[in-house]
């Protein structure tokens, strides 16, 4: 079998036993890529030559020695493009390494390529990419989710072993759910954001997309930790995750928030989530009904705060210092107008305008500051819930992957795709999405486990136990 189908953990064993060489992994991946990338379009850029060169001098004693990893196209890796799937960063080459990228390098991994995304991570379908759309490996007529849709499609489509993504409102978990892989959004402050092109700084978090929970833990162990370059990273000492895998969920309390199980929700999704809950119960866990009463406000709060932050974060793309610059500008104001009008896509413009509006004099009290207050209440919801349970168990997405083009003209409907993931970012908690079933039409369904802040170990333990007791992660999309 092609090495492209293996997990990182397995490949590491085989590398260490000298059974295979890092170049074998790359060769198999490139064979797969050649066969499937044309359909999937998961990548915006491939490091073919530099990856093969790197494979010849890897240090296998390192935790990720010889393991190729794909990066979402908003993570700076020195010398590689970093387009954020935007025309405005056309031709831009990263002049430095993000901390996460530098940690991957130090851990011995090989940078495989850069994955497609919604422009500046704004979207839930990867259809907002200026570099073309990405298809769902399970059904190429459907979206892969977003914004880390390229990362999810590459991992699920077996053209990457693992990829990094970023999650601002669900951008790792929702595509992971829709593509049938494991997506982890760590607690805010767990992984350095230095070098991640910011969308909404108080919500953004880097995380891994992998085939298995074990691989997810492996990557988190490499990436987690305080970074003196990121003021918002937590000061706790580095941790190694999931070092013990006894598969037990005995005694764990799972909270089922009633606001996440609504009448009229997708029935196949609901029954898959209920079966997952039953499995935990059967294996010694208890189920608790909990409430996160401010959940209905989350989308509104999110689209105020995230866009407000984005309006400032994206102000730097002005054509003066780097990236695309409009030609024949009359003066500097005209340069700004034209560069940004030509360089940004419709959704990015929509959010910049929305964010500028909610911060404007006369409106900031009603929108931005009010949303900050509600955010504090949402955070309290979670704190309160975690006095009653150890993990929250919810669907990741209200429904499986929807058809390409279905919602591109209806932004509000598109925003609802993140209804179950957004609150976690607002509260700052960590959460994972892992496959928990398939629809009749063979589309993956994702289970979300949300932990208390810095509760990744519990999340990973429970997710691993569930995963290993089922075969969902082993199922392959049609080739």
């Amino acid at each position, binding site marked *: 079998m092609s090495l492209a189908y293996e997990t990182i953990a397995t490949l590491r064993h085989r590398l260490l036993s000298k059974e295979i060489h890092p170049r074998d992994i790359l060769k198999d991946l490139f064979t797969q890529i050649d066969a499937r990338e044309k359909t999937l379009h998961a990548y915006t850029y491939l490091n073919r030559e530099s990856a093969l060169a790197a494979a010849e001098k890897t240090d296998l004693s390192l935790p990720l020695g010889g393991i190729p990893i794909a990066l979402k196209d908003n993570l700076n890796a020195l010398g590689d493009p970093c387009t954020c799937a935007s025309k405005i960063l056309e031709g831009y080459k990263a002049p430095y390494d993000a901390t996460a990228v530098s940690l991957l390098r130090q851990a011995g991994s090989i940078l495989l390529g850069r994955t497609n995304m919604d422009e500046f991570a704004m979207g839930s379908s990867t259809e907002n990419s200026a570099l073309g759309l990405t298809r769902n490996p399970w059904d190429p007529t459907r979206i892969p989710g977003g914004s880390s849709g390229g990362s999810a499609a590459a991992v699920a489509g077996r053209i990457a072993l693992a990829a990094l993504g970023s999650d601002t409102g669900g951008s790792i978990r929702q595509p992971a759910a829709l593509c049938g892989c494991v997506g982890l959004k760590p607690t805010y402050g767990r992984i350095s954001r230095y070098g991640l092109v910011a969308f909404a700084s108080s919500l953004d978090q880097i995380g891994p997309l992998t085939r298995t929970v074990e691989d997810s833990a492996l990557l988190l162990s490499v990436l987690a930790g305080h970074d003196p370059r990121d*003021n918002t990273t937590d000061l706790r000492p580095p941790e190694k995750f999931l070092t013990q895998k006894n598969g037990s969920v005995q005694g764990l309390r799972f909270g089922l928030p009633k606001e996440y199980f609504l009448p009229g929700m997708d029935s196949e999704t609901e029954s898959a989530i209920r079966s997952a809950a039953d499995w935990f119960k059967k294996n010694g866990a208890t189920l608790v009904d909990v409430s996160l009463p401010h959940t209905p406000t989350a989308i509104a709060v999110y689209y105020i705060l995230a866009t407000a932050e984005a309006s400032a974060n994206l102000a730097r793309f002005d054509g003066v210092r780097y990236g695309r610059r409009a030609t024949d500008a009359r003066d500097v104001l005209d340069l700004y107008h034209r560069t940004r009008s030509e360089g940004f896509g419709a959704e990015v413009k929509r959010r910049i305008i929305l964010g500028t509006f909610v911060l404007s004099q006369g409106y900031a009290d009603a929108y931005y500051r009010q949303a900050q207050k509600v955010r504090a209440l949402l955070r309290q919801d979670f704190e309160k819930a975690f006095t009653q349970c150890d993990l929250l168990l919810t669907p990741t997405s209200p429904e499986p992957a929807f058809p390409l083009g279905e919602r591109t003209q209806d932004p509000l409907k598109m925003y609802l795709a993140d209804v179950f993931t957004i609150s976690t970012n607002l509260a700052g908690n960590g959460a994972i999405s892992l496959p928990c079933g398939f629809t009749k039409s063979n589309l993956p369904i994702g289970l979300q486990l949300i932990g208390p802040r810095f509760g990744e170990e519990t999340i990973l333990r429970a997710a691993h136990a569930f995963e290993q007791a089922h075969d969902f992660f082993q199922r392959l999309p049609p080739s």
Partner: protein
Amino acid sequence: MSTPAKWEAVIGLEVHVQLLTQTKMFCGCTNHYGDAPTSHVCPVCLGLPGSLPVPNEEAIRLTLLTGLMLGCTLAPVARFDRKNYFYPDMPKNYQISQYDDPLCAGGQVPLDPFLFPKEIQDTAEAKAGRAIRLTRIHLEEDVAKSFHFEDRSGIDFNRAGTPLMEIVSEADLRTPGEAFSFLGSLRQVLLAGHVSHADMEKGQMRCDVNVSVRPIGQKEFGTKVELKNLNSTSGVRRALTYEIARQITACEKGEAIAHETRRWDDEAGATFTMRTKEKAHDYRYFPDPDLLPVRTDQGLLEAARTRLPELPSVLQARLIQAFGVTAYQASVLGADRILCAYFEKAAAQAKSKATVANWILNDFLSTQPDPATTPILPEFFGELADLVADGTINSAQAKKVFAELMANPASPREIVKRLGLAQISDVSALGTYCDEAIAANPRSVEDYRAGKTNAINALKGFVMKKSQGKANPLQVDEILKAKLSA
């Protein structure tokens, strides 16, 4: 120059101060001016995608220290905000500043009477001893520097992201002289704390002025005008003098004052409209999500406290009390800490401490010395003052000793010996000189006895000449008088 009695001006200042830190405000780049353009830059201060700011704790400490020196209320928790506007010299198109929760609030700057312009130091305005209240002090990052060439512009990013402290005064100032003294007095405090070199002409301290006029007795403020391009303390004074007169003339003609920003043109000696403020800029301030709130109560404040220097007002009072210097001398000494330390060393052992101040501030300073490196030991001035005080040399001889001291630095006692200058105070020797003088100048003796007391000067001059200037003039005077009235 002076405001007609009917009107008074209301003035508030916003002072930007460059801080003496090794590195920039939010990155590790060197904070230094005058190097090759854009040579101290990194992803953070260039605002590259993905970069993040990390606050410079030394800049926070210096701001807290300034707050302590000026009697501000210091925030236990402060925050950084983003101030949004587009400008090519601002890499992120937002400036990290402080809006709702600045590091320091309140406080005041006491106006030093001797830091008013020279010619009005004797007026009631200068002697009023007012203290100007502060609104706040906050910390922010500076922008890059634009250069405009014939057909294009260039930006030097070395200044981008360097720490900048903004001190905002209440609208307490009433005259250009007060504004002048405010800037000088504030500078003394900043120098005392080693916070900044605060030299306006080098751009280390920059000042925006808000000024309006109103009839005396009216409580409401008039329409305020902001003045920019003020590059020196005297420029601030000149600009205010012009602008106040302009506003009063307009008001007296019944014209409305436009709410606008005006540019001071130092050469033309006038202010000109830069932009009107009808459309107030909306900076859309919000807390910077990249930066955690700053807890000043966990070490930063304590560290700042240990660096509290002796404040100018305290130092001046001590100089007057301990050394008997005049208030003016205390102000001059207080304004130059190195000179002041030199003086204190010089006066420490001296018996005539106030005279030491005269020597240093009048004679020594006029030679434009560098008190930090001069080979003339401060103790020499104490010795010189004491030589005069104990009658070893007279003041004319002292001038000679001083000149020799400057030319060939050595102990004044040695110089006195070397030049054979010691004063003759021996009564019998002086008596002989006096007898000679009386014998040689019968006319003057006659005149003196006839009541022309000035005639004694000729006799004194004879004695001094005879003694080669070494005679103790006070004793000569006494002896001559005694002999003449005998």
